[in-house]
């Protein structure tokens, strides 16, 4: 089984702050980490490799320092990595990102399975996984929370839904995006970390991938960011006093009054 995992370097959002003037993320001095959802993608790939054998390649698109996340992935036990990096890729929206990633997957000779995290915590679009599948004309299942059956030819997956889950059969080659329930990421391993220290991350740019600079990066993006702003916290607040029973009864009255719930006998 040949598995490709897509991972992204993101600012550690637990510590990120907004610039009050421009409303953009203040990235300076904020540590970069592997997108937390991508750790679940790595874990899923490692578990599948344990069962089915084969090799895992981690790919990331980003500036040269994004090579760090490839090294981290090596520390977790993936076999190889690829950094997709070029000035021309800067400012890419999800459309342009999937263009570059699709070319990178083809550059690697394709895969039996591509695994992505459900979304990145900086952009929060959840579009790159499904978009990449579309670009590569692969069947896909998003929000995978586990599997019931795995083989080289197909996977029977559980897809997380708001109200329970679906069971879906995915023929391979295909693409999945995974959610947290797929399994707690294992710790990195000492042997992996030692290998990562010496690992030279292979890198490819637009030219090696045969991409026209006009199709990638800002030039190849269709998204235009008009304005970024923090939503105003608004609405009225009402504090209810009295005992819990009294306050509870009052809440019900108010909800009925506001026609949020139906009143009844």
């Amino acid at each position, binding site marked *: 089984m040949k598995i490709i995992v897509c991972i992204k370097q993101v600012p550690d959002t637990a510590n990120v702050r907004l610039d009050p003037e421009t409303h953009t993320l203040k990235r300076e001095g904020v540590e970069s980490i592997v997108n937390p959802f991508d750790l679940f993608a790595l874990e899923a790939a490692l578990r599948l490799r344990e069962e089915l054998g084969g090799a895992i390649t981690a790919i990331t698109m980003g500036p040269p320092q994004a090579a760090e996340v490839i090294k981290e992935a090596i520390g977790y036990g993936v076999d190889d990595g690829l950094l997709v990096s070029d000035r021309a890729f800067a400012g890419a929206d999800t459309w342009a990102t999937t263009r570059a990633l699709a070319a990178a997957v083809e550059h690697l000779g394709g895969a039996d399975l591509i695994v992505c995290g459900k979304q990145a915590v900086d952009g929060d679009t959840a579009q790159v996984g499904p978009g990449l599948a579309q670009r590569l004309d692969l069947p896909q299942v998003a929000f995978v929370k586990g599997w019931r059956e795995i083989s080289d030819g197909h996977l029977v997956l559980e897809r997380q839904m708001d109200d329970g889950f679906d069971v879906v059969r995915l023929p391979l080659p295909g693409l999945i995006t995974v959610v947290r329930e797929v399994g707690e990421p*294992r*710790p990195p391993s*000492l042997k992996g*970390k*030692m290998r990562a*220290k010496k690992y030279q991350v292979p890198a490819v740019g637009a030219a090696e991938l045969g991409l026209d600079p006009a199709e990638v990066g800002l030039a190849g993006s269709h998204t235009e960011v008009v304005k970024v702003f923090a939503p105003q916290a608004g609405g009225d607040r009402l504090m209810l006093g009295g005992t819990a029973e009294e306050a509870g009864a009052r809440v019900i009255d108010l909800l009925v009054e506001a026609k949020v719930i139906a009143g009844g006998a």
Partner: protein
Amino acid sequence: MDYFLTEEQEMIRDLARQIAQERIKPIRAQLDEAEEFPHEIIKALGQADLFGIIIPEEYGGLGGGCLENCLAVEELSRACVGCSTSYAASFLGAYPILLYGSKEQKEKYLPAIASGETLAAFALTESASGSDAASIKTEAVRQGDEYILRGSKQWITNGGEAGVYTVVAITDRSKGPRGASAFIVEPGDPGFSVGKKESKLGIRASATAELIFNDCRIPADRLLSREGMGFVVAMRTFDQSRPGVGAQGVGLAQGALDEAAAFAKTRKQFGKPIITFQAVAHMLADMATKIEAGRALVYATARYIDSGAKDIGKVSAMSKLFPTDVAMEVTTNAVQILGGHGYMRDYPVEKMMRDAKILQIYEGTNQIQRNVIGQELNKEYGRKK
């Protein structure tokens, strides 16, 4: 303090710290309360390669030594000694194979121990034989291509959880201490069973159980080294492992100091944080000083052992004795500094105090360590005359 660790040693320390912080700390109270063996933690430590630290690379390990082992044990102990005991006891069971096993024995057992897939255990103590190890009764009789083991072992860490047991038994009673031998026993061996699991004051996440050998038949090639080498195997094993118990003391005491100092900074009485009272600050100062002294002793001893030195009995005993006495004192004082809060299960220090006691008892009580040191001094000063 910078102990000038290599990059690799720092990596081991940091990874053990990460697992202790992220995996062990959040569940230590629950493991303690339920007296539950930490299977998930053991699995994570295996995935992180931490069970391979002292195993040579040719057997799937990392080829590290005593210092690397101490660094990992210290960090795990800072979070939970119940978990670190289960971890370290696997090395205690592995050392006899590592030090005295044949190539075949090493090939058969060490890779699974290194990966964490198999836990090891070491069985010497019996109901009537603790400090006086030479008085053990369990015997092994050669019969054709087999040994038949009869007797039982008491309070064996990882009992019932381990996949490999190294067991010391008497093969020739007439030879006294030179009549003991060490064997490898597997859980599936006919006549072997695990008895009662003990309920304990501390390190409640660790499993402590009785091992029963009821005419237990094992192939003769399970003998480690030669007949008669049993106590040599045991003593050389303890020489290697005792700094690890010292490291448990250092880590545990550090964990207690972390809690006590943080509490003393935020707890206010008489309008001031209690750390501003000299009586409290001096307690913390003594705690920190003794912990650092213990750490320095453990690291220095571990480095000395790793240099290949032979005369390690005395320093090995010192490196177990001092930091574990410090751990008992520091954890007791941590409870004192937290006052009533420290006595409650809502705070981790009462568990730390309960956990500390075992470090003064197992792998040779601290009285026995003093005996070892005293005997060595007697010899040394006898020679100088």
